[in-house]
């Protein structure tokens, strides 16, 4: 394991379950933070999309949790952790098009089943762990100065 790089910036955001009025505001805040730090448009955009998908998943499906934005010398990390209910089969949940979304989530324009996949698509490193009854944690990493294909 390479030694961890210096943390330049850290922010912690709480995400409330089912709070549709505020859903998405963590992501817009993260976007503004990254813009203020002078990140390139590509990095800002990818981080914002990852954050939005993760935030919506937490609002729609979880019992709430938090999102941590960690900017290091060489990377931007987004850490998501919730208080459950957990995902029984992560491979299945990550499949594009697979969704357990209730009708009310679909009526809002979400729940198409692309969320986890889209988070992964926009990350350089992506790790998700979950335990039913406990919760889910996701770490999405964007490496700075690495061409993204």
């Amino acid at each position, binding site marked *: 394991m390479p030694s961890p790089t210096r943390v330049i910036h850290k922010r912690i955001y709480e995400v409330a379950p089912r709070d549709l*009025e505020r859903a998405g505001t963590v992501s817009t805040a993260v*976007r503004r933070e990254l813009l203020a730090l002078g990140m390139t448009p590509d990095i800002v955009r990818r981080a*914002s999309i990852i954050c939005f998908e993760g935030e919506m998943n937490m609002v729609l499906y979880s019992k709430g949790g938090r999102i941590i934005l960690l900017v290091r010398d060489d990377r931007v990390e987004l850490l998501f952790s919730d208080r459950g209910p957990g995902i029984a089969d992560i491979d299945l949940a990550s499949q594009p098009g697979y969704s357990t979304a209730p009708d009310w989530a679909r009526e809002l*324009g979400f729940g198409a*089943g*692309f*969320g986890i996949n889209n988070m992964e698509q926009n990350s350089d490193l992506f790790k998700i762990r979950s335990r039913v009854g406990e919760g889910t944690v996701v770490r999405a990493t964007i490496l700075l100065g690495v061409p993204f294909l």
Partner: protein
Amino acid sequence: MKLADLAKLLDAQFVTGADQAEREVSRAFAADLLSDVLAMVQEEGVLLITGMITPQVVRVAEVMNMGAVLFVRGKLPPQATVEYATGATIPLLATQQDMYETCGILYRAGLLPAKRKGFPLGNAFPHAGHP
């Protein structure tokens, strides 16, 4: 295409951001499904054409740095959403035309589709458990 020209073509009104009528939108993407917008639109400055009027529409437009949002079918977002868009300097427009007419008019006028990633499902069928 300039927002002013687009408004003229569609007989659309500015809900907010009329001061940015000279802003150019590069290309356009039409969807009610925000999941699709997040997964497919690849470039910035795109016009989002939608019938969805939740607060999340404007937040998606903001995080994806879209050029403007055009609401079709005579739909108007709630006042709080309009105020949020004003603060985020995202112009909002509304037209009485439906989505098909809107897209047809804009396409004929030369506004091209947004560059996009491959569709998430490609040619594969969705998972069998998907309704």
